[in-house]
């Protein structure tokens, strides 16, 4: 695989593209595949011809930057020779910062905005060198990484659940609540202690309750989470994964997140991140990903990449008020006036794939720049606004991209892979967790990796585990199960399941609800207890490869070789978390118990004790009064009584 990658990287050196070039990478890939496709858009050939000079300059910078990114672990497929001019590298800065915003109008009429800020810093924390000078990279995170010997760190805070059926696949999937997974360097001796310390530090940095991560909700997945950057080994002893499904994300998490940006929220795209609008949405997710990447193709030097992503979906119905239109101002209550001065590139992409003739929505101001990229197995076309160009802002010196819908909302989508999960049964003793995984591909089956981490207080009956698809038993080819230990560690269940084409695979496992100790209940025990999302990682056959219609108009260079790399793409799907009610005592019970015991002791025990210890004897019938007086007299006289 490595050799293959090198080959691909070598290809990249030779490659240049005559028109536009865009890198949209999806860092969720386990094997670290950033699939990039560059294509000429025939429709805008005329437009591009008009302004070759400007275009040219933009492409050149783009390629320079694309190199380190993709060299990380990429596989490319550009297959035609390149002018030499691009190959002369511009002098590399030590670190660089790029920002971009992708806006995708969704089928349902909602709109999806995905921010991504990337800082790449050529440095090496691993060799114990003290780093004290920070420029673009946030010092707070740098110190954490060097202190705790972190190799990779991925943290996400999400409020809401991504509706795959309505919105399609997200660029950056994340489960509701907080998710943290960290690969430590193999020099770390006591991983658990480091992990504990790290979570507490991160808790302070992000103002979140990450300090609630302890051994009862931490697992070490054996297969589901592989390093995304360059890594020497993948020994899962150095991996820790934890979710807090209950974590609520709000402004106090957003502010520290924004502070990590080089421009803060003062300039560039980050101006748009106003909490009063961001939290007036259907979905909000923010994340920080740190990983080591290669600086160049030979991978001689390493650099550290920090990606900050923020995804938000705005709801048409709650903020539309009749008019079906979206603008930057309407979404974020700000417009853009400048790029971040520290940014090497600052762009806005609008996904116009479903809208080639503007029949679905209208985009204004119009932009001549178009680009294509393969994202999530689908070739997408984007309109590009380059904020580093003054032309973009026009005469009014501000950019307010406006999308006006023309068509009505569509039906629900049928994404190739989606999943749902629920608790079945009633009563408070047992239950059953059902996980449903849908493969909507018409003719291809593909394997998925399922990770379930269930808290110990749901005692899984693993012998009741069944996997069925299409009514038949579907034997998983790989099962990794770690039983829980009460109050110490959760259940971990990982399975590799083959999903047959066009099917629903149902995984059921029964559980028993444990009765907790009375101090272990949360302050709101009747709310229920959360079980984190299960994670489904899969290589899904891409829709590009599904398309066998070669007569369709496509750039020639992209159709010559059969596209192996594109034949499948990596997705991670999170199911909804579960809320499970446990048997809960009536917490006024201690009072009742005290009252009852006191009564029982006072009345019952006293009498019983009396009864048991008393010696019984037959009592003489009472002598009459005369007899008693007579006896007294006889006693005085010294005569035996009657």
């Amino acid at each position: 695989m490595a050799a293959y990658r090198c080959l691909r990287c070598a290809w990249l050196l030779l490659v240049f593209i005559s028109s536009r070039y865009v890198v949209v990478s999806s860092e969720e890939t386990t094997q670290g595949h950033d699939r990039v496709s560059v294509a000429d858009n025939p429709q805008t050939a005329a437009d591009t011809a008009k302004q070759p000079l400007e275009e040219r300059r933009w492409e050149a910078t783009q390629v320079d930057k694309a190199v380190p990114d993709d060299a990380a672990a990429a596989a490319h497929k550009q297959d035609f020779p390149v002018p030499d001019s691009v190959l002369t590298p511009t002098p590399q800065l030590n670190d660089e910062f790029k920002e971009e915003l992708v806006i995708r109008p969704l089928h349902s009429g909602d709109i999806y905005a995905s921010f991504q800020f990337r800082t790449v810093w050529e440095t090496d924390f691993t060799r114990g060198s003290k780093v004290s000078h920070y420029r673009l990279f946030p010092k707070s995170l740098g110190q954490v990484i060097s202190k705790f010997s972190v190799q990779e760190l991925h943290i996400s805070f999400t409020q809401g659940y991504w509706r795959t059926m309505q919105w399609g696949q997200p660029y950056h999937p994340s489960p509701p609540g907080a998710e943290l997974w960290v690969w430590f360097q193999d020099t770390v001796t006591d991983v658990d202690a480091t992990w504990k310390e790290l979570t507490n530090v991160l808790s302070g940095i992000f103002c979140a309750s990450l300090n609630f991560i302890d051994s009862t909700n931490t697992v070490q997945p054996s297969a589901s989470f592989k390093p995304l950057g360059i890594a020497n080994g993948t020994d899962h002893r150095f991996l820790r994964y934890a979710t807090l499904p209950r974590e609520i994300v709000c402004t106090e998490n957003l502010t520290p997140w924004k502070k990590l940006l080089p421009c803060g929220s003062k300039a560039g795209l980050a101006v748009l991140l106003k909490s009063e609008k961001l939290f007036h949405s259907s979905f909000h997710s923010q994340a920080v990903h740190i990983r080591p990447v290669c600086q160049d193709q030979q991978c001689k030097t390493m650099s550290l990449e920090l990606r900050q992503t923020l995804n938000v979906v705005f709801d048409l119905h709650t903020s539309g008020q009749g008019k079906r239109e979206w603008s930057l101002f309407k979404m974020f209550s700000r417009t853009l006036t400048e790029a971040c001065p520290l940014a090497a590139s600052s762009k806005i992409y609008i996904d116009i794939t479903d809208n080639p003739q503007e029949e679905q929505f209208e985009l204004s101001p119009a932009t001549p720049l178009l680009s294509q990229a393969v994202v999530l197995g689908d070739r997408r076309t984007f309109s590009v606004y380059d904020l580093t160009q003054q032309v973009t802002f026009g005469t009014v010196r501000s950019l307010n991209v406006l999308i006006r819908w023309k068509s009505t909302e569509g039906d629900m989508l049928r994404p190739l892979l989606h999943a749902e999960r629920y608790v079945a049964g009633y009563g408070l003793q047992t239950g059953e967790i059902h996980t449903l995984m849908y493969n909507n591909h018409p003719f291809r089956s593909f394997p998925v990796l399922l990770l379930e981490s269930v808290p110990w207080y749901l005692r899984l009956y693993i012998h009741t585990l069944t996997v069925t698809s299409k009514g038949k038993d579907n034997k998983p080819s790989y099962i990794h199960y770690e039983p829980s230990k009460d109050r110490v560690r959760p259940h971990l269940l990982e399975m590799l399941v083959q999903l047959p084409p066009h099917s629903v695979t149902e995984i059921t496992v029964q559980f028993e609800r444990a009765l907790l100790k009375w101090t272990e209940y949360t302050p709101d025990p009747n709310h229920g207890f959360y079980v984190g999302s299960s994670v489904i990682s899969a290589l899904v056959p891409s829709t590009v490869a599904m398309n066998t219609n070669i007569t369709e108009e496509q750039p020639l260079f992209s159709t010559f070789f059969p596209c192996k790399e594109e034949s499948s793409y990596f997705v991670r799907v999170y199911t909804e978390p579960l809320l499970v009610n446990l048997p809960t005592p009536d917490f006024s019970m201690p009072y009742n118990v005290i009252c009852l015991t006191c009564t029982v002791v006072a009345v019952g025990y006293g009498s019983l004790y009396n009864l048991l210890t008393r010696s019984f004897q037959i009592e003489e019938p009472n002598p009459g009064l005369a007899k008693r007086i007579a006896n007294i007299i006889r006693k005085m006289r010294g005569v035996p009584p009657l």
Partner: protein
Amino acid sequence: MGLLSDPNRRRALISLLTRLNAPICVLCYFAGVCWFMGLAFEPFTLRTYMSENAMGSTMVEERFPSGERALATGREFAAHKKKVGGMPVDWLVKTMQARGLEVFTQSFSRTLPFPDENKERYIVKGTNVYGILRAPRAPRTEALVLSAPCSPGDNNNQAVGLLLGLAHYFRSQIFWAKDIIFLVNEHDLIGMQAWLESYHHTNTTGMDWSPLQGRGGSIQAALSLELSSDVITSFDIVLEGLNGQLPNLDLANLFYAFCQKIGVLCTIQGKLQRNDWDSVSGYSHAVQTMMLMVMKQASGRPWGDHGLFLRYHIEAATVKGINSFRQYKTDVTTIGRLLEGIFRKLNNLLERLHQSYFFYLMPSLSHFVSIGYYMPAFGLLAVILLLRALDLWVQFANPPAVTADGVADIERQSSPGVLSVLTPLVISHLTGAALYFLPTRFQETAVEHFPVSETEAVVLTAIAVYTAGLALPHNTHR
């Protein structure tokens, strides 16, 4: 204990119990009945109060504006229902989708043991339609349900209209923290049971249903709406569910609080609350209300679609709009505001409703009798059994040695053996088992060989079992 350890006093006590057994029993009986009847007397009962903190003060503001539109939707629904001759599934799906809900359908069928009363059919087939309003920024863990049955004829069209109107209005609000499921169920209880079983993936009734495609996590509370007229005079709440189960009292309190706030007349058991508790008629009114509740619970059947929710630990109630001959009418906008208020309050819940009582009786909507108050009455009635048993036992242990003619001695010889006790026990158990199994078992054979219908066959078998029981020697022995 001291009393019992003293043989003299014990003897005195026992003789008192045996001598005065009948008067004491009668006394207990009357005391029990009086206690129970006293519960309906207002000064003896507690006023209802909201226990749940999250629903405490009425801080929500109801703004539902579009009652007329809801009625128009209801009329449209009625027209489509008439055209299709049943549940207009496609229309409902389209309408719910247009309101921005995630819409799913569920089909179900159930083979009936007896043919249906009005249509003479053995298999009931139907479709439930439900739309889920996804709460913004909520992880699909909690849900509330608003349901309206799609009844045959002209009934309940306004309820469906209002449900869709509320769905439209709720969809544009930002404050929802729980998903809201809008359910239109066909064939009343059968449809509801199919939906609930499918939602929880259980099968207790042997029904066939298609699995649900969309869920909203654990359901916290549910409200079933029945409304058959454009204006109403009062609103009735039905609480009694399957096997006499009741929802948490806070749900009734919530309903009452909003009726008071909005100014809608509200009833329970179809009876208005009266202020003249000190008059005889006022008191008998309260007694009737309370006794109706007792009777309905004793019947064990659910008195509304909500009744089936209770098994799944979901607090639920049915609210019925009633249109009678009264001057003061309430329009649908007001009803919508009432429901909006209730749902916003339920939306505020942090925990399931659990603070208030689950066992209670209601002589009126503003007063309740908790289990602690009505159990003594029951205890007084139950102690009679104990006293009678004690009496019999004492008589067995030391038979009256009064007789001078020696009759007592002969009787002492024939002390009752185990067998004589065992026989009636076994017989009564067998009779019970026969009554449980035989009617349905013999139903088919009876219909084949005799000119009776299925329902008659069951009744006749039950009668036959009783008659056979009478013929047993033990029963005639005495």
